[in-house]
């Protein structure tokens, strides 16, 4: 491709503008690298020296709607926790279940008298936050509870996990503690292996960085422990106005002047969606919630005067790098294609000079992520490499080692334009993978398509879907993930 525009000031201005677009794409990469460079600091900058042997009365609240398949196991595991039995009670808030949940709970209450409480809502279907609030009203009305653990019906706690969380509450400046949630399928396949790596990166790795930075983005919905003082300070209720009630609780806790701590050695196993459509609905709810949070807390971003952690530059960049990642990818793609049409050599030079940075960042991030939990990491290392998709992996390899496959003429032009546009093309293709799973003939091909297109692009596609649904004011439905009891310890 030769230069298409005459060499003018306008051309220079256009080239600078396109270079700026390409540079926008570097922001999420740099933000990701900065976040991962901070993680090792958790070895020295953590909360362990401020803990104490604190074993409060813990009320565990489990919102449940048609969870008969998983409740017995979860309650048995809770009863078997390495924690003083007389200081642990389980409150299951039954959201008007229509399956065997009431019968299962009756049997559990009989087996563990005084330690399992069944709270039933006669009118259900309003979502998790409403269900939790029903339980909170009941629990806060009594003086017994000193700390409250919010969990999901399908999660399973390792025996020492609760006391590893409560030790942080000895420090009166800590309002809430969250644990490390892992994908818990005994034999993860396809999408659950991707989720396994995703949780490793987003929880075990990323939350350590948030500990260091002193600002937590979100308490895990299935493992959040609050002090009674904190719950009362934030109003004693969970937010019902958004789809991200966990994040709102996390922000409120910190804005009310208390710390939120991630405890990486308190491990919790959770059942995650095994199908693309189920995963899409779950993550769409999370992504829409994050879009709503961005608007709800617009007074907070990049304002340290509001909160030194949440309003800090580091946290703001981290938040928006994820939220605006699809936009950054689109702008980078436009920038590269524009530069190619303007001056193919300049585009090639820019791409060649810059491409090693995202490749090195990617390799650095997955190596560090696997190292934080090698047992899980070594099970999902293939999905780590293929997180951006097999096609992106080949594109990255070809970009890292240009000339290994010699191309010339039209083939080179097509290949170059494909590479520059793949950044954004993968997003609609990820949407196509979801649609493929919905067809009878395509269902068997969907896992293969997911590996080709990638889990990362699928998350970007879900974020785009969240923008669209929020812009259109789509109904905020609570699509419950079907639980089958696949989690094994």
């Amino acid at each position, binding site marked *: 491709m030769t230069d298409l525009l005459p060499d003018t000031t306008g051309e220079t201005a256009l080239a600078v503008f396109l270079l700026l677009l390409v540079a926008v794409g570097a922001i999420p990469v740099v933000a990701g690298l900065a976040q991962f460079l901070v993680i090792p600091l958790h070895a020295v900058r953590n909360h362990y020296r401020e803990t104490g042997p604190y074993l409060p009365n813990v009320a565990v609240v489990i919102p449940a709607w048609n969870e008969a398949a998983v409740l017995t196991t979860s309650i048995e595991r809770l009863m078997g926790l390495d924690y003083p039995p007389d200081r642990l009670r389980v409150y299951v808030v039954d959201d008007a279940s229509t399956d065997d949940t009431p019968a299962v709970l009756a049997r559990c209450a009989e087996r563990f008298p005084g330690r399992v409480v069944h709270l039933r809502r006669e009118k259900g279907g309003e979502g998790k936050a409403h269900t939790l609030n029903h339980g909170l009203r009941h629990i806060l009305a009594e003086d017994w509870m000193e700390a409250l653990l919010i969990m999901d019906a399908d999660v399973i706690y390792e025996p020492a996990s609760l006391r590893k969380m409560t*030790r942080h509450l000895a420090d009166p400046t800590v309002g809430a503690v969250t644990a490390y949630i892992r994908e818990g399928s005994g034999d993860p396949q396809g999408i659950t292996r991707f989720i396994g790596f995703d949780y490793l990166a987003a929880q075990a790795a990323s939350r350590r960085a948030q500990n260091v930075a002193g600002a937590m983005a979100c308490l895990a919905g299935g493992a959040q422990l609050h002090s009674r003082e904190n719950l009362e300070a934030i109003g004693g209720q969970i937010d019902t106005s958004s789809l991200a009630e966990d994040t709102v609780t996390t922000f409120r806790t910190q804005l009310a002047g208390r*710390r939120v701590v991630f405890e990486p050695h308190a491990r919790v196993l959770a059942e995650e969606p095994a199908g693309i459509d189920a995963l899409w609905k779950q993550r769409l709810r999370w992504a829409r919630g994050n879009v709503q949070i961005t608007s709800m807390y617009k007074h907070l971003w990049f304002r340290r005067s509001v909160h030194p952690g949440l309003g800090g530059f580091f946290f703001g960049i981290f938040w928006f790098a994820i939220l605006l990642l699809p936009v950054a990818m689109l702008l980078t793609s436009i920038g590269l294609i524009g530069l190619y049409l303007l001056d193919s050599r300049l585009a090639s030079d820019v791409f060649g000079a810059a491409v090693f940075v995202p490749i*090195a960042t990617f390799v650095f991030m997955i190596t560090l992520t696997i190292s934080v939990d090698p047992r899980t990491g070594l099970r999902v290392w293939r999905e780590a490499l293929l997180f951006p998709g097999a096609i992106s992996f080949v594109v990255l390899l070809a970009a890292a080692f240009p000339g290994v496959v010699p191309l010339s003429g039209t083939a080179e032009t097509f290949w170059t334009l494909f590479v520059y546009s793949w950044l954004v093309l993968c997003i609609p293709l990820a949407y196509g993978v979801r649609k493929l799973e919905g067809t009878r003939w395509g269902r068997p091909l969907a896992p293969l398509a997911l590996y080709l297109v990638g889990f990362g692009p699928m998350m970007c596609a879900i974020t785009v879907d969240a923008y669209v649904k929020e812009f259109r004011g789509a109904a905020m439905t609570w699509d419950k993930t079907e639980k089958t009891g696949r989690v094994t310890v």
Partner: protein
Amino acid sequence: MSTTHGLVGAGQPFRVSPPIVVTDDLLARCGGLPPVWADPLALADETEADRVRERRLYVGLAAAIAVVVALWVVRSMLLG
């Protein structure tokens, strides 16, 4: 961790819970061995072990840097 400036509870004494009384019944339910949570020193040891375990992050950092450097070297060699 984050700055303590403006934190609710800063300067207040740490929260404590009543000591655990290990009764014969409790001991029997725990298989004859006193549970970790009944011994504050054992709990402190557990926390110290977790704190020290975090030093493994340095190994992860070293591994990550080594992999990136190796990739750079291979790339440089292949590209001449």
